[in-house]
């Protein structure tokens, strides 16, 4: 008794199903690592269930069970993310729906929908990572998914795996040139078209609008690139490579922050001395801060940015995608020579009841007199001469963090120094604030760009000194190099040594550094040319070849695509013409009959070589001898042995040549 088709669980031959499951795993694997564990486990369990159900030919699950699982999936995603929209919950839903689709693969339609879902899931990866390797992942996955689609549409059993992969591979290979043309020429509309979910993009580390002890130290171990810089013209000396980020002025005894201030007109800023012009490619940071050398020129700001009252370069909206901007800075300056009383009060505020010892110390300096400069020098001298250590692993600090750092632990990272220095200055009556940002920039030996990494994150202080305005003080720099602890040394000075030894002695450190530089160079090209290829770069590039406006772009796009398709289609049709016979004797015979046909003597259907030769001899007596010889040579070559002998073939070739004369 045959089972009715409806109760069968599969629309696919088993072999095709295994392949579908394999490709599914390939496509969702990177997501499985990102999703909540319960969901990854559920999806894997559905896959296992599917395998067993197919093996044992279990009936398809009841519709109520499927509906229940779907509701459970929504509830689960809501429980994990607190909502069901946005980037992360959206991807989570897509993946679990793909898993649930495994419970109903009854018709070919279900399988095709699954394959389309796989294509779409592939896209979601790039919201999380667009590194160079994803290109190869993209190609491998599209070939595999396309092979599955080809397999699905082949009636009558699964295709041999290699044939299916070859079909997929050939399709993708033929699509690549077209993709390249579209990528280059398809006019890009500046996004976003609708509001991006606030969790768009990959999770990233970086500086933020608050700073607690340990925040910057955490960044110090991150090798991630913060931004890349290409200088136009002069390159600033290492001592001037202070990249200004969030300026923090509110202190609660432990953390620094930058509460929003009412907008005020930009304070006066006089820039002097040499200027630097540079193009920065900032990795997405999800914050509005852009980084510029101290101090950015307000008259040459990048588009859609502003300069805050603390001289921060701010984007109008948070940077969620890689951003490229050109800025101009001058390190010699006089910033805000006059400070209003209200401003002064704001910048002298310290929370009451915290850090009593530090305040007492600072007040003693103030009473000693000597002016603002003397107070600053006293503080720096303390860091320099007393036993302060610079370490990546500072001890934990309690309530009076500044007191504990200054008088007990004396081990800290830049934020400890900057924070306590600003507290001391304020206590001594000098307006001061903490500036966070990056210090340094490492030249890539293969490109002409400089790299600033998260490990270059830094915090320093700014003190307002009457007559001079804001003055940058970096207390960390005054700590004696002898007291830089080893843990940091392995990280910092090791690479520094390697940098000096580049192209010199060949050692492990150097090799590692070189490999990292090459990778960084490739990565920078990838970021700049491929990932950064958007509306602006496209216009710049195409302007150079005279395709500046979108009408010309569209014309060029359709023209080149049509030409490429004609070429591909032409090659396809060429391959599908009747193939030349593999038999050498038959090929020569055809060559001869074509020639006779051209002379008005076609070989009729069903007419053998001997009959044909006889007929030609009758109709054209002049050709009788060569044609009879030809037919004899052909029959000999073709039928005397299984494979024509070389002598027989030579005879035949001679006979064909004789006919030509």
């Amino acid at each position, binding site marked *: 008794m045959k089972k009715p088709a409806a109760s069968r669980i599969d629309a696919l031959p088993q072999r095709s199903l295994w392949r579908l499951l394999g490709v599914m795993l390939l496509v969702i694997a990177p997501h499985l690592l990102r999703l909540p564990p319960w969901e990854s486990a559920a999806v894997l369990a559905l896959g296992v269930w599917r395998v067993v159900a197919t093996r044992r030919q279990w009936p398809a699950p009841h519709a109520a069970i499927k509906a229940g699982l779907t509701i459970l999936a929504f509830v689960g995603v809501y429980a994990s993310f607190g909502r069901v929209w946005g980037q992360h919950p959206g991807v989570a839903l897509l993946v679990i729906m793909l898993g649930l689709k495994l419970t109903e693969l009854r018709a070919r339609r279900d399988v095709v929908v699954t394959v389309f879902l796989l294509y779409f899931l592939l*896209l979601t990866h790039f919201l999380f990572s667009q590194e160079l390797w994803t290109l190869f992942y993209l190609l491998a996955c599209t070939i595999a998914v396309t092979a599955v689609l080809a397999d699905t549409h082949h009636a009558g059993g699964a295709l041999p795996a290699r044939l299916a992969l070859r079909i997929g591979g050939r399709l993708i290979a033929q699509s690549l040139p077209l993709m390249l043309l579209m990528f280059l020429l398809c006019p890009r509309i500046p996004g976003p078209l609708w509001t991006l979910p606030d969790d768009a993009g990959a999770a990233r580390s970086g500086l933020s609008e608050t700073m607690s002890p340990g925040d910057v130290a955490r960044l110090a171990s991150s090798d991630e690139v913060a931004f890349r810089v290409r200088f136009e013209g002069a390159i600033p000396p290492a001592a001037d490579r202070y990249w200004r980020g969030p300026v923090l002025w509110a202190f609660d005894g432990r953390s620094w922050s930058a509460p929003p201030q009412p907008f005020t007109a930009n304070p006066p800023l006089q820039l002097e001395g040499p200027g630097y012009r540079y193009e920065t490619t900032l990795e997405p940071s999800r914050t509005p801060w852009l980084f510029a050398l101290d101090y950015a020129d307000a008259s040459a700001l990048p588009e859609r940015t502003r300069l805050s009252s603390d001289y921060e370069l701010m984007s109008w909206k948070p940077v969620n995608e890689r951003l490229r901007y050109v800025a101009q800075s001058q390190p010699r300056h006089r910033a805000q020579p006059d400070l209003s009383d209200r401003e002064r009060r704001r910048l002298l505020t310290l929370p009451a009841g915290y850090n009593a010892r530090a305040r007492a110390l600072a007040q003693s300096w103030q009473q000693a007199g000597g002016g603002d400069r003397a107070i600053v020098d006293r503080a720096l001298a303390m860091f320099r001469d007393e036993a302060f250590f610079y370490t990546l692993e500072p001890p934990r600090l309690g309530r009076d963090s500044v007191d504990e750092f200054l008088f007990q632990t004396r081990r800290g990272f830049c934020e400890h120094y900057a924070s306590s220095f600003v507290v001391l200055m304020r206590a001594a009556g000098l307006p001061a604030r903490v500036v966070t940002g990056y210090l340094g920039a490492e030249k890539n030996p293969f490109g002409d760009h400089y790299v600033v990494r998260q490990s270059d994150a830094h915090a320093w202080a700014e003190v307002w000194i009457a007559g001079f305005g804001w003055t940058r003080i970096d207390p960390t720099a005054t700590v004696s190099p002898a007291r830089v602890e080893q843990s940091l040394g392995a990280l910092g000075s090791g690479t520094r040594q390697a940098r000096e030894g580049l192209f010199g002695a060949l050692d492990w450190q150097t090799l590692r550094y070189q490999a990292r530089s090459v990778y960084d160079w490739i990565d920078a090209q990838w970021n700049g040319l491929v990932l950064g290829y958007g509306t602006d770069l496209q216009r710049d590039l195409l302007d150079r070849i005279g395709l500046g406006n979108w009408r010309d772009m569209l014309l060029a796009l359709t023209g080149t695509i049509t030409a490429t398709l004609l070429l591909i289609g032409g090659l396809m049709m060429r391959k599908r013409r009747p193939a030349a016979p593999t038999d050498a004797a038959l090929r020569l015979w055809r060559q001869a009959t074509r020639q006779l046909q051209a002379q008005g003597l076609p070989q009729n259907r069903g007419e053998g070589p001997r009959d044909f030769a006889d007929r030609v001899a009758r109709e054209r007596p002049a050709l009788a001898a060569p044609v009879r010889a030809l037919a004899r040579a052909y029959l000999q070559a073709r039928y005397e042995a299984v494979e024509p002998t070389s002598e027989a073939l030579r005879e035949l070739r001679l006979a064909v040549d004789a006919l030509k004369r």
Partner: protein
Amino acid sequence: MNGAAAHPLLDGLRHPLRALRLRIERWGQRHGRSPQASVTVQRGRIYILPTRFGLGFALMTLVMLLAATNYANSMAFALSFLLAALGLVSMHQTHANLIGLTLSAGASEPVFAGDGARVIVNLGNASSVIRLSVELRWADGGTLAVHDLPPRDTQRYELVCRTGRRGRHPLPMLRLSTEYPLGLFRAWTTMTLRGALLVYPQPAAAGPLPSSDGSGQRLASQAQAGQDDFAGFRDYRPGDSPRLIHWKSLPRTGRPLIKQFESGSSTEVWLSWQQTAEPDAEARLSRLARWVLDAEAAGARYGLRLPGSVLPPAAGAAHRAACLEQLALFDAAAAQGRDRAR
């Protein structure tokens, strides 16, 4: 409103792709070529339309493109463009999958009206590329068979064709189609191969043979015995039963000889149009067809007398075929005119 009896316009709205396909096909039929013995599929004769999966794929690509624009994500752009390109390339592959295939029709056996006629169709792939998932079927439907055609090969397929009226009919239109490789597009071509399908009248229900009257003799029960009286040899003619071949003489003569029997006392019967009692011409022909079959089965010698034509009494498969062909090709309208004139 009944779905089955929907207005063509409504049907077109519900199944836009199918309606479009039918329109194109009708156009193709009007501008079709005369039937040929062998047809090679040409580029210009292939139609192609997206399938509903193809439309879904296009929609998906568009959504992905929107997402890529929104996130300004270059890799997402790359994927969307790759899929768009994949659609275009697969369209060309689908189209090319039919190019250069060669079709020719083989002989087909005559059948009785209403039975399925088996038509031999040779489908050849002379190129060096395998053609996967090629469907060959009659344009008006019929059973679906999907075939993979290896390179440099010709496959023989037997297609069953529904028959309606008796007569000699041209072969119906064939449709060759494919959705290879991804099922996003469907390419098809239609063609009519030269060849004829001979359809005999459908035999009427069993009934007695005509009793002897002025022109016919009664059928004797010992009819089979009539074949026993050997009368001599004659040359083989197509349609002769192999049982009648005189095998012993074959090596000597080099050609098959047929043993002939004299049915001296055996029955001889005339099957005549006038004897049939049915009211209309088609029913009469059906009755005659039944008689021919019964007479042949009974081993009688029988002749056929139709208005305007007479086949003298004989027996054997060839005679039976000749009689049935007469019935199949009988011009009923002319006969009726003659009847009235009489």
